[in-house]
């Protein structure tokens, strides 16, 4: 089975969760003996791990009449133009490459996948890692929506990262339920998980980690924190990350009079992230809409108890995490209070949570994707 995949980013150079998910999934799928993956991305940097797949940089594929096209490989202002260029490269590759199925990751690559389908006649599977409804809290950008919609209409099958996303695709994009499946994301095992330790300290640490944007619900974190601090001292709150809601959030913290208990260390990457999580007593992800949300799984890998919103896709597969509605700050505060107050709570969530995530494997997700491939090919 040969798959031609279109992606946008790939570790180690990642801007969001998309690259991490593509890496995990392709690696998990490569464990299947007869699986060959060709992964196309706009602009590889050369230091990507290519031991289990073949990587093609769109910027090194000559396009008739234009030669090699430059790509930023990021999310620039002329994104729509870049998506178009990517589509032209896809047309070339569709003629050159040998493959049985096309697999497009997220909306940026849907047009490329659709074009490759038209030229080669091979079936198209698209993978919805997020929709514009998640990013915009409902205020969708018509251009983005049109691209997403066309990709879904063209697809032979649609894979969503959670039932939540699947529901959005069916209801907001008018797709037939039979055409839409859920394959939950997994998490790469953390080889050096034992090297992260929790340092003894007087105060308990409650952490928010991620972009400080509308989608992530930072204000609910602050409100819950204010409730906790009204009852108990000895708890500190960390908001690691940056984003367009940062100033507003700091403002809110000041207005609630809890600035002395809040810390904003800015954007973190690499080992720093795990170190902070391992040191934290609670990780909170109050996302308003999260297609999957990998970070609670990463927190649990280093033994940090997680509180997540029901509006996060990962809530569908996690048992040893506390779940509340994103707007239910009372419940969120209650859970934070319990974890910092009762040792049994921390211990159970930490130990059982770690066991749980260690059993969520990309290999299994890969098998589900393979079954979908097989069914799509049978139908064609």
């Amino acid at each position, binding site marked *: 089975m040969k798959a031609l995949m279109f992606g946008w980013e790939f570790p180690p150079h990642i801007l969001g969760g998309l690259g991490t998910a593509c890496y995990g999934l392709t690696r998990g799928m490569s464990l299947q003996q007869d699986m060959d993956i060709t992964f196309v991305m706009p602009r590889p940097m050369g230091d990507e791990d290519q031991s289990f797949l073949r990587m093609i940089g769109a910027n090194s594929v000559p396009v008739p009449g234009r030669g090699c096209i430059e790509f930023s490989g990021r999310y620039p202002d002329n994104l729509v133009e870049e998506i178009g260029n990517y589509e032209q490269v896809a047309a070339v590759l569709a003629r050159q490459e040998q493959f049985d199925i096309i697999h497009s990751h997220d909306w940026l690559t849907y047009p490329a996948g659709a074009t490759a389908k038209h030229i080669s006649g091979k079936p198209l599977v698209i993978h919805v890692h997020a929709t514009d409804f998640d990013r915009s809290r409902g205020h969708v950008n018509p251009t983005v929506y049109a691209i997403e919609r066309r990709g879904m209409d063209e697809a032979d099958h649609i894979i969503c990262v959670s039932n939540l996303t699947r529901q959005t695709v069916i209801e907001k994009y008018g797709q037939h339920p039979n055409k839409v499946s859920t394959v939950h994301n997994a998490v790469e095992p953390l080889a050096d998980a034992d090297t992260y330790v929790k340092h003894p300290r007087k105060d308990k640490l409650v952490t928010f980690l991620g972009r400080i944007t509308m989608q992530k619900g930072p204000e609910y974190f602050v409100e819950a924190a204010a409730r906790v601090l009204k*009852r108990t001292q000895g708890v500190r709150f960390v908001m690691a990350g940056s984003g367009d809601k940062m100033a507003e959030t700091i403002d809110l913290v000041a207005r609630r009079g809890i600035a002395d208990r809040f810390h904003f260390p800015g954007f973190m990457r690499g080992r720093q992230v795990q170190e902070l999580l391992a040191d934290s007593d609670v990780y909170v992800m109050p996302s308003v809409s999260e297609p999957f949300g990998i970070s609670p799984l990463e927190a649990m890998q280093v033994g940090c108890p997680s509180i997540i919103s029901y509006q996060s896709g990962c809530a569908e597969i996690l048992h040893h995490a506390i*779940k509340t509605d994103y707007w239910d700050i*009372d419940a969120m505060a209650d859970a934070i209070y319990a974890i910092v107050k009762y040792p049994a709570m921390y211990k*159970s969530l930490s130990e059982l949570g770690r066991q749980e995530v260690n059993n969520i494997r990309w290999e299994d997700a890969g098998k589900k994707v393979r079954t979908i491939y097989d069914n799509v090919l049978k139908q064609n």
Partner: protein
Amino acid sequence: MKRICYCFMMHIPNRLRRYRFFEIGSNHYYYDDMQTEEQVTRMVQQSYLPLGQTLTDMIRLSKGKFHCAIAISGTTLDLMEQYAPEMIDVLKQLADTNCVEFVAMPYSYSIASEYNESEFTEQLKKQKEKINELFSQSSTTLWNTELFYSDDISLLAWKLGYKTIMTEGAKHILSWKSPNYLYLSAVQPKQRVLLRNMTLSDNLTFHFSDSRWPDYPMDAEKYIHALTQLPDTEELINIWMGAETFGIWQHAETGIFEFLKALPYYALEQGMTFVTPSEAAKQLTGGERVSVPETISWAGESKDLSVFTGNDLQQEALQKLYAVVERVHLCKDRRIKENWLLLQDINHMHYMNHIDQGSTSYESAYDAFINYMNILADFLQLVNEQYPDTIENEELNSLLKTINNQEKEIVSLKQEIDKLRKKKK
């Protein structure tokens, strides 16, 4: 001759309301009365009442030959008095037939037998008073919560005057042996131990209407016939279950009530008799001793305490709860006493189990723990206000003794003054 011993267990927990941590210290009411009332109404209407009616009919039709037992907790009787007094009347009628034994049980369906001897004693005493008040009975047969039993519990129960004790016919204590005999305690050979026949009891609860069950469809004749096939020496068959088997687990439409009602006819026809647990203990001499070093129960697959005490959450909750038992015993406050009983209900710990949460209304074991601990924190604060935990228990005891003895001392001192005055004159 074969004896059949039926026992129906009734317990309805008081549901706790959603109690957030910022209420600790300011709100001292812990219960979701609406939900509790709804549960009581549902259980009584769908199960307990029709069961009570059926048992009354069975006794009448068999001319008093059908005997059975009911195990009902004191807190459940309290709830019935409040929400379903008609059920109390039915139970009183059953008691009046002299064919139904109300066996002893800890008042609030607690795990006190494992955590505190004096609390266990208190609860049995309170339960005894309640049963005596309502039904004029005083059974010396004990159905401990969830059929908890061990050698230690046996000694304790014997000390408290319970001559017979009921527990699970757990495979790991019986191995190849049959539960269908009267056993004796290994540590107190005078104490009789009755063992539940797991298979025959659970079949009704879980499989009666299950079309994949090999014995489906079951009817009374077939059921009694199967009992006659047991070896002649097996003389006592204990069929005990939660009363909600009838009407809730197995809906009325499955014919479970008619099945039950028809049993005495076929059993008496085969020369079998029906006995209450105390009658069984009296009629049989018993032989083998059964040794139970670790507590067993009828719960879960493992038939031990693990469903209720197996994880860290449950252990922390129980440990915090029973740490104040001495202080609560010193308290006179009615509300504290009442809450103390209700917070001990083993169901609260069941809801904190990660795998099997019983009939929970919580989202998860964690959710159950958070809510319970918030309430417990408030309760502990109230206890602490009466008797601060900065004072050691022993010191507290002597202080209380001094206070209680004050009056006597005053009287004796007055007498002395009088004497001296007289002398002076």
